[in-house]
C-alpha cells in the first residue's frame, strides 16, 4: 500500500519536472529527462501493478473470509465515497477507478494490508514487505493490467466527479496520465504532442513491462477531445508537450 502512495507521489513529482523542463533555458536536457522518465516508468509500474489490497496469505493473523480478499481490480468495485468494507464482506459489483479507492481507503484506515504498511502517511520508501511484493507473476500481470483499461474507458466517457472526492479525482487523473504517457520516452522529445505519434514503444520497452500496459494506446487517447477536457491543466500541458 505504502509503495503505491510513494509511487504516486513520485509520479506526480516526475511529471512536474517534465512539465517545467519545457521552458528551461538552453533547451531540453536530454540526460536529466531520460532519468526522470526512467523513474516515472518504475513508479508507474509499481503504481499500476501493485493492487490496492494485496491478497493476504492464509496465515495472516487477522480474521479472514473463506475466500481471500479480492485483488485491486475487483476491489475497485467498492462504491464511491464509502469506507472500504472490512475484508470479510464480499465486494460489490460495479466499475470504479481503482486508484481512487486506494486513496480513500488509505485516508480512512489502512485496510486489508493488516500485517504490513499500516502507517498512513509514512514518509520515505519502506523496504519491500513480504506481502506487498512488487514482483508479480505472469498470471497476476493480466489482472494487474486490467486497471489500466479502466481509466482508459472512463477517460473516454468523462464521469462527473463525486462530491467531496477531489483527492480521488486527482489520483484518477494521475492514473489516466500514466496510461497516456505510456512507458516510452516519446512524450519528451518529439515536437509533436504524443497524440500524433504512432504506437510508441513495444520494441524498446523493458522486459518487465506488462503486455496489458503496453496495450494501452497512449497516442489515441490524447487525441480524444472529451478526454482532453477532463484532464486537469497539468496533464493537458504534458499532452501538448
Amino acid at each position: 500500500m505504502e509503495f503505491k502512495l510513494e509511487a504516486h507521489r513520485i509520479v506526480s513529482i516526475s511529471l512536474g519536472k517534465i512539465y517545467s523542463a519545457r521552458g528551461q533555458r538552453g533547451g531540453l536536457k536530454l540526460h536529466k529527462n531520460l532519468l526522470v522518465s526512467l523513474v516515472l516508468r518504475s513508479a508507474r509500474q509499481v503504481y499500476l501493478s501493485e493492487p490496492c489490497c494485496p491478497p493476504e496469505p492464509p496465515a495472516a493473523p487477522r480474521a479472514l473470509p473463506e475466500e481471500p480478499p479480492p485483488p485491486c481490480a475487483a476491489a475497485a468495485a467498492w462504491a464511491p465515497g464509502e469506507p472500504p468494507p472490512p475484508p470479510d464482506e464480499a465486494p460489490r459489483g460495479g466499475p470504479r477507478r481503482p486508484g481512487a479507492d486506494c486513496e480513500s481507503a488509505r485516508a480512512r484506515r489502512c485496510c486489508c494490508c493488516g500485517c504490513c504498511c499500516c502507517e498512513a502517511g509514512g514518509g520515505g520508501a519502506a523496504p519491500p514487505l513480504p506481502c506487498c511484493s512488487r514482483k508479480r507473476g505472469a498470471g497476476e500481470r493480466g489482472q494487474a493490467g486490467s486497471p489500466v483499461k479502466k481509466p482508459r474507458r472512463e477517460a473516454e466517457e468523462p464521469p462527473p466527479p463525486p462530491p467531496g472526492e477531489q483527492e480521488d479525482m486527482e489520483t484518477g487523473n494521475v492514473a489516466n496520465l500514466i496510461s497516456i504517457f505510456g512507458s516510452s520516452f516519446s512524450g519528451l522529445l518529439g515536437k509533436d504532442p504524443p497524440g500524433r505519434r504512432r504506437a510508441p514503444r513495444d520494441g524498446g520497452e523493458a522486459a518487465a513491462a506488462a503486455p496489458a500496459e503496453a496495450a494501452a494506446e497512449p497516442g489515441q487517447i490524447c487525441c480524444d477531445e472529451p478526454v482532453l477536457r477532463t484532464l486537469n491543466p497539468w496533464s493537458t500541458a504534458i499532452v501538448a508537450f
Partner: protein
Amino acid sequence: MEGESIYEVDSGDGLGADIISTVEFNHTGELLATGDKGGRVVIFQREPESKNEPYSQGEYNVYSTFQSHEPEFDYLKSLEIEEKINKIKWLPQQNAAHSLLSTNDKTIKLWKITERDKRPEGYNLKDEEGKLKDLSTVTSLQVPVLKPMDLMVEVTPRRIFANGHTYHVNSISVNSDCETYMSADDLRINLWHLAITDRSFNIVDIKPANMEDLTEVITASEFHPHHCNLFVYSSSKGSLRLCDMRASALCDKHSKLYEEPEDPSNRSFFSEIISSVSDVKFSHSGRYMLTRDYLTVKVWDLNMETKPVETYQVHDYLRSKLCSLYENDCIFDKFECAWNGSDSVIMTGAYNNFFRMFDRNTKRDVTLEASRESSKPRAILKPRRVCVGGKRRKDDISVDSLDFTKKILHTAWHPTENIIAIAATNNLYIFQDKVNSEMH
C-alpha cells in the same frame, strides 16, 4: 592542508559573482583556468617562489579574464544556447603561448594566450600616440627599438569548432598526440583536428533509430593519457566503455565494457539515477580510471571489466534521503572527481561545501570544508564529520542540517604538487599542503 587564497569570480556587471562551472590546471600547474555560467574564463597564474618572502611563494593571482562564449539563439529550434562554460582543457604548451579549449553546450573554441611585455618605440612616421607625423618635422631617421612595458596578456580566439553537435556537449579531451581532440554530447562523440574547424569525424554514435527506444546517454569521456588510440566514455547506466580507434572507424562497439552488477538489496526507484556516472578520469599512470556516481567514487583497473578495484562512499548517509533529493533536484547534481599527481589520493566534492579525499594506500579518508573561516591565509583546515545519529561529537554536522545549496561540483588537483582548487558556487578556493608539498 592550509587555506591559501579565495577568489570570488565577479561578473562585474553589477549582478554579483557568477557560478563557477569548471576548473582546470594546465600541464605544469602554473596556470589555473576557471569557467563560469556567464561564459567568462578567468586564468590564474602562480607567482614564482621568492626566496625573500617565503610565505608568498606559489600564490595564484589573476592573470587574464576574457569572455569566451556569449548566449546564442538557435532560430531553427527556437532554443536559447547557454553561454555557460561546461569544460576547459589546456593544450600542452608547445611555444611561448598557452592554448586552451573551452566549450559551452554547442561550440568549442580554441584560445591562444600570449604575453606582451615589450613594445616598439621610435617610429619615423608616427608619433607616440600613433598619429601620423608631419613629414616636414622629420629631419633624421631612427631605428625603432623595443622598450619594456607593463605586462599585457592577450587572448585571441584561434579556432571556432561550431555545428558539430546536436545535443549538449558534456566533455572535451585533448589527445596525447597533441593534434586531435574529442568532444562528446549526450549521444555522440566527435573527433576534431585542432587545425580544422569545418569538419569533424564522428567516432561514437549511440542514438537509437527510434528515439523512443533511448535508454542511456553518454555522460563523460576522456582520452587515455599515453595511448592516443584509446579513449573511454561513461554512460548514464553506470557503465564505462573503452574504445580503440584502431579497431574501426566508428567505435560504437567497445573494446572493453566496465560494469558492476547492481546490488539488489539497494534497489529503489532511484537506483538508475544514482548509478549514472557523472565524471570519469584516467589516472596519470594510465592504468586506472576513476568514476563518480551520486554516492560513490570508484577506481577501475583497465584490465578488470567485471567490477571496480576500489569503491569509496562519499556520502552514503544520503541513501535514505533519495526521494527528497529527487524532489529538490539535487540527485541530478554532477560531481567531478580528481587524482593527485602520484595517483595515491582521490578527491571529490559533496554538499555543505564539503569535499572528500581518499588515500588509496592507507585507506584513510578525510572530509574538509571550503569556507571563509577555514580559508584565512595559513589557517589549517580542520577535518569535518557528518554524524548520522548515534554518538555526536562536538563540531559534528548532522545530516539534516547539511546545506544542499552549497555543493562542490568542480575540483582540480595540481599535476605534481599538493595544491587543490575547489569551486564552491561562485568562490574559488585554493588550498596548499605546505607541510607535505613534496609528492611521496
